[in-house]
C-alpha cells in the first residue's frame, strides 16, 4: 500500500500537520452558541452576534493559518477572507449538516486553497468550491455495512486498538467493551451524538486499514 504522505503536497512546504487527533480530548466550547450567532447574522446581519463570533474565531483561525502558511501576512489574509465569507455567506450555513466550527473550518480551507492557487498564478479551472464540495450529494444506495463490527471480536484487532487516537479509543471502549449505547456515551462524555457516531466510523476505518496493511 502506498504511503500517502509521499504524495506531493500542494504547498510544497514541510510543516507539521495540525494535531487534530491529539487535541480532540479537550472539550470544545459550546458549538450551539455559534450556530445561534450564525443564524442571527444570516437573518438580520446582526453585528453584535458577528462581533462575538469574530472575537472567538479570528485569533484561532490565525493560529491555524500560522500553522498552515508559516507566516503572519498570509495567516492574516486567510483570517480576513474567511471571516468575510462568514459575514457574507452566513445564509449558507446549515446546522443540520454540521457544526458551526466545521463550516468555518471548510471556509478557511477553501480560502487557503485559493490563496495557494493564486500565488502560483493558475487559471482557476480547479477551484476550491469544485474540489471541496460542501452541499448534499445526490442520494445513493447505502453501500456501508457493519460487517467491520464483527472484526472487533477478532483478536487481530486488539493490537491496533491501543494505537487509536485517544478520543476515538474512549468512544470505542465504551461502545464495544462496556456495551453502552451511543446515546449513553454521548451523555457520559458530554459530546454530541453525531460526534460519537463519527468517531466510531473513523476508528472502524482506521482499524480496517491497520488490518488490511500487509506490513502489519
Amino acid at each position, binding site marked *: 500500500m*502506498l504511503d*500517502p*504522505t*509521499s*504524495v*506531493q*503536497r*500542494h504547498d510544497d512546504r*514541510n510543516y507539521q*500537520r*495540525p494535531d*487534530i487527533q491529539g*487535541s*480532540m480530548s*479537550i*472539550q*470544545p466550547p459550546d*458549538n450551539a452558541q455559534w450556530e445561534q450567532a450564525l443564524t442571527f447574522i444570516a437573518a438580520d*446581519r446582526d*453585528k453584535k452576534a458577528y*462581533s462575538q463570533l*469574530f472575537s472567538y474565531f479570528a*485569533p*484561532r*483561525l490565525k*493560529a*491555524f493559518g500560522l500553522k498552515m502558511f508559516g507566516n503572519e501576512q498570509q495567516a*492574516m489574509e486567510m483570517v*480576513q477572507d474567511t*471571516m468575510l465569507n462568514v*459575514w*457574507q*455567506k452566513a445564509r449558507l450555513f*446549515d446546522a443540520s*449538516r*454540521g457544526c458551526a*466550527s*466545521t*463550516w468555518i473550518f471548510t471556509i478557511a*480551507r477553501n480560502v487557503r486553497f485559493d490563496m495557494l492557487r493564486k500565488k502560483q498564478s*493558475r487559471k482557476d479551472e*480547479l*477551484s476550491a468550491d*469544485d*474540489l*471541496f*464540495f460542501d*452541499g*448534499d*450529494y445526490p442520494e445513493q*444506495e447505502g*453501500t*456501508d455495512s457493519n460487517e467491520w463490527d464483527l472484526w472487533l471480536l477478532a483478536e487481530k484487532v486488539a493490537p491496533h486498538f491501543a494505537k487509536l487516537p485517544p478520543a476515538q479509543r474512549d468512544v470505542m471502549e465504551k461502545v464495544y467493551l462496556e456495551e453502552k449505547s451511543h446515546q449513553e456515551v454521548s451523555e457520559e462524555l458530554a459530546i454530541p451524538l*453525531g*460526534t460519537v457516531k*463519527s468517531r466510531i*466510523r*473513523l476508528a472502524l476505518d*482506521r482499524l480496517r*486499514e491497520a488490518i488490511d496493511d500487509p506490513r502489519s
Partner: protein
Amino acid sequence: MIHAVKYHPTLELLEQYIEASLAPQVSLAIAAHLDLCPHCQRMKMDLEAEAGAALLSLPEAQTAETDWQQMLDFITAQPEVAVKAEQRQPFTLHIQNSEILLPASLKPLLQTKLKWFNLGGISTAKLAGEDQHNVSLLYIRKDSEVPQHTHLGLEITLVLKGKIYDESGCYGEGDLLINTPDHTHTPRTKSEDCLCLSVLTAPLKFKKGLTRLLNPLQHLFY
C-alpha cells in the same frame, strides 16, 4: 447502477485532502472518487468535523486589538452577497459514440471540446496539465491492453465506467488506484469498454535529508 466501490483513498490521504494539502490534480481525483463513493463522502464530513473541533480548541494567536477592530470594521461594512446552496449532479458527456455519466467534479474541466488522440485500442484526451501534473481521460476499448509505460511520479487512476483488470485484480466504477513508478502492471479490458480518469504527478522532490528519514517509501521515487 451502483457499483460497490472497493478501492478507496487511505484515511491519511483523505485527511490531507480535506485540509487542501494535496496537489490540486490529486485533489481532483479524490473529489471525483467522492462523487461516486458514499462511504468516503461520510468520511470526509467526519474528518471535517474533527478538524473544526480542533480549530475550536486552538490557542488564540496574538494580534493587536486595534488590528482586529480594524478588520472587524472592514468586514461588517461589506454588503451581503447573494448565495444559494449548490446542487451536485452528475452529468452526461458524449464520448466515443456513447453517452457516459460523469462525476460532477469533472464538469469544470469539460467545458470545451475534447481532443482525442488514438493509439490502437486506446484514446486519451488531456483535461488539464501544468508542472507535469497531467489530468486526462483514458478510453480503453474492450479486449485491449494498456502498453507498459513508465512515469516518474505517481499514477492515479479512477475508473469512471466499465471495468479494468490487472495482475492484482479487477477495478470497477469508482475504484481509485494509486501506482508508484516501480509498480509495473499491465492493465487490460475484457468484454467491455472502460473509461478512466488518469492523473500523473510530477516526480517527487525530496529536498531534505530529514524528509528522507521520515518517509520509508521515499526510495521508490528515484
